[in-house]
């Protein structure tokens, strides 16, 4: 069968399965097995924020809301909410029939405790958000959040990953990080903690008194620790596990698994995470201080080649600072198509003429030490820039060394990737704001890019609650920043989720496998 026919048949199969899925009612029962690697240091969000922590934790804990594929809010523990016209007061009505796994009722006290005490103390990513907020209980099932000035990203900060609601009766007055309850977490989510067998699995079981009557459908979930990616792929193939996600499976293997009957590959469900990979350029160093040099780098790279041959199609060419899944994304920004002649012309214009060996500039690239894919990327960048006379020497290091050199601005260029999160004020501005140039801290403005106009626009956009105005402001920012190209955006990584075709309704919003799985079910 030719490739064209295969893909047509595949598409037809998809359409067919989509209609049959819609027609089927969820079936109760069944045990879901998922891979989880590496084994997390803990499974309480905030106390730990590693990616593997989130998968089991999101099944046991819940936030006030979740966000759909378009990052629009969907109620979870909050029934409804109201935002005052001045953007300074948020009032949440909480669900009344919610119980903690230990049987105690969930009340406004838990929310007040989580927002005023737990998040600011342990959740490093959400701390800046909840430090702006004062939360008070109006009655047992109503809370009010007050701000000193409007903060637009707040409405996208109430998901389980950013603000899980913790049981006040078990944590209040304790050392949150050392509390023994962290070993046997108690949440409100559809699954309860059963057992953590070190080195083998985390076992969660159905919460029979879950507030959504009849849910969850699954009886239990096992998160199994399988250390080798080839073994994980094999476990999927043989049906030992029904779910694997993100970096569990080598990108090169994903397409092969997708062709196996009974397995489904999807790249949906990472809208909240929305990862962009780029080459960080040290704007303090010559010749990177010249925007023409940075633009030349972008023109010299065939990002379509990177997408197809390095990320094996699980990526989309990035256009600028915002991820295309963001509601504020604007595609009409200065573009950098693959054009080595244009790159050479820009370098000529800068006065960087080729010497006898055809070399215009000598620079170093510190590769991200995350495995083979990133090594290939570094090798490709070296060859592509070499073609326009920019001689790149690769530097290698271990993860700690990479992080330390990157954070302390000790690099020419380095490859990296970062999650853009639910709102540009949370995930995007941190890379470009002058006020976020903080030596020694990773994932800040490490490139040293500084533009007062961009700073002012970011501040205005974060302080406005008018979505239309924010969209206009972020459009302006995207045009200016894409034009200056302080960093060389490569691709948006489309993390794959690979699951058994029998697993249904698992990927239903912008959190993908990090959703609560209250709706997930296994077909018999």
């Amino acid at each position, binding site marked *: 069968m030719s490739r064209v026919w295969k893909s047509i048949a595949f598409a037809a199969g998809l359409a067919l399965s989509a209609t049959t899925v819609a027609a089927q009612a969820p079936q109760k029962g069944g045990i879901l097995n998922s891979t989880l690697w590496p084994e997390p240091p803990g499974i309480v969000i905030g106390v730990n924020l590693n990616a593997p922590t989130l998968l089991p934790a999101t099944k046991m804990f819940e936030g006030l809301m979740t966000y759909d594929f378009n990052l629009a809010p969907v109620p979870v523990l909050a029934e409804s909410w109201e935002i005052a016209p001045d953007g300074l007061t948020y009032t949440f009505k909480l669900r009344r029939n919610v119980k903690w796994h230990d049987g105690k009722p969930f009340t406004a006290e838990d929310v007040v405790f989580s927002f005023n005490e737990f998040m600011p103390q342990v959740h490093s990513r959400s701390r800046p958000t909840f430090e702006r907020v004062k939360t008070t209980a109006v009655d047992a099932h109503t809370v009010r959040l007050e701000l000193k000035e409007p903060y637009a990203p707040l409405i996208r900060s109430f998901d389980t990953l950013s603000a899980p609601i913790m049981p006040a009766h078990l944590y209040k007055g304790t050392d949150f990080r050392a509390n023994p309850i962290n070993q046997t977490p108690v949440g409100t989510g559809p699954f309860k903690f059963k057992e953590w067998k070190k080195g083998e699995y985390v076992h969660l079981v159905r919460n029979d008194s879950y507030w959504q009557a009849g849910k969850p459908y699954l009886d239990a979930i096992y998160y199994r620790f399988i250390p080798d*990616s080839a073994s994980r792929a094999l476990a999927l193939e043989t049906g030992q596990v029904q779910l694997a996600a993100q970096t569990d499976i*080598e990108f*090169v*293997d994903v397409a*092969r698994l997708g062709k196996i009957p009974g397995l489904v590959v999807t790249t949906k469900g990472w809208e909240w995470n929305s990862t962009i990979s780029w080459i960080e350029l040290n704007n303090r160093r010559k010749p990177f201080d010249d925007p023409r040099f940075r633009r030349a780098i972008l023109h010299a790279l065939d990002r379509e*080649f990177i997408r197809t*041959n*390095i990320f094996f199609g699980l990526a989309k060419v990035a256009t600028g600072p915002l991820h295309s899944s963001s509601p504020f994304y604007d595609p009409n920004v200065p573009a950098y198509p693959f054009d080595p002649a244009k790159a050479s012309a820009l370098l000529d214009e800068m006065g960087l003429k080729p010497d006898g060996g055809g070399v215009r500039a000598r620079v170093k690239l510190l*590769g991200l*030490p995350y*495995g*083979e*894919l990133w*090594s*290939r990327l*570094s*090798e*490709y960048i*070296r*060859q592509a820039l*070499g073609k326009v006379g920019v001689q790149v*020497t*690769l*530097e*290698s*290091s*271990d993860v700690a060394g990479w992080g330390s050199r990157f954070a302390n601005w000790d690099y020419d260029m380095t490859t990296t990737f970062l999650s853009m999160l639910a709102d540009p004020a949370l995930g995007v501005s941190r890379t470009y704001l002058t006020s976020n140039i903080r030596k020694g801290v990773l994932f800040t403005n490490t490139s040293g890019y500084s533009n007062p106009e961009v700073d002012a626009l970011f501040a205005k956009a974060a302080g406005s609650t008018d979505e239309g105005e924010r969209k206009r402001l972020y459009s302006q920012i995207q045009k200016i920043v894409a034009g200056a190209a302080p960093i060389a955006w490569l691709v948006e990584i489309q993390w794959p989720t690979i699951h058994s075709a029998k697993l249904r309704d698992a990927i239903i919003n912008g959190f993908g496998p990090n959703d609560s799985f209250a709706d997930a079910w296994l077909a018999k």
Partner: protein
Amino acid sequence: MSFWQSFLRNRGAVAGLAVLAAVLLLALSAPFLFSFDPWDTRGAPLQPPGEGFALGSDMLGRDVLAGIFHGARVSLFIGVVSTVFAVVIGVVVGAVAGYFGGLVDDVAMRFTEFFQTIPSFVLAVLLVAILTPGLASIVIAISVVTWPPVARLARSEFLALRHRAFVEAAVLSGVSHIRIIFGEVLPNALTPIVIMASLMVATAILTESALSFLGLGDPNRISWGYMIGAARAVFRHAWWLSVFPGLAIFVTVLAINLVGEGLNDALNPHMRRRTDP
């Protein structure tokens, strides 16, 4: 029987020498036969061996055959240079220990044993990681982990020769210690060291491959170990990426070992009986 006569009687050694010569030719001819950069994309990625690429192409469309030719340069270079360093260090330490004896011997041997107690590959990995991966750091790491056996061998040879009449005569006639060590004793102790060194080249090539396989190679130079390491993730899609460089390492290391055996037979008069029934 002359050296060459006894060497040529060993068919394995002759075959090894021929293969080794071929590998050397590969390394020397690489810049002429494949004048392009072996890291360059030359066509479609993951093409099986055939018309486009004699030995196939890798995930970035790089020519595997060109990689093998250019990789031979790195493998041979590291094999020879790090062995030379190791032999120099080992001979100096061993000669001083064996010649002077006493306290000097004790100190030198305890120092040598210190290196021998650490698993050599772990030490090599550690050294490369600390020195940041590169050609120089790999040569240093391999030399540092391979010199102790040379030192022990040199010491035993020197101990045996130290009190022979010709050495005593040289001492009595006032020749300096350095001249006695390198001018009188060393030439007589050289044979076993040369044989050992020839086998060490093979070990060095294997060690370099193992380091590169673990991603601790020089990221700017293509080598056989690197090619296998990079191919690991796509082994189920493209067998040719790991098989050909693997064969190259296998054949080269085997050839060096055969040559080493041949040298041993030809140079070691006690062993000649083995090929001389």
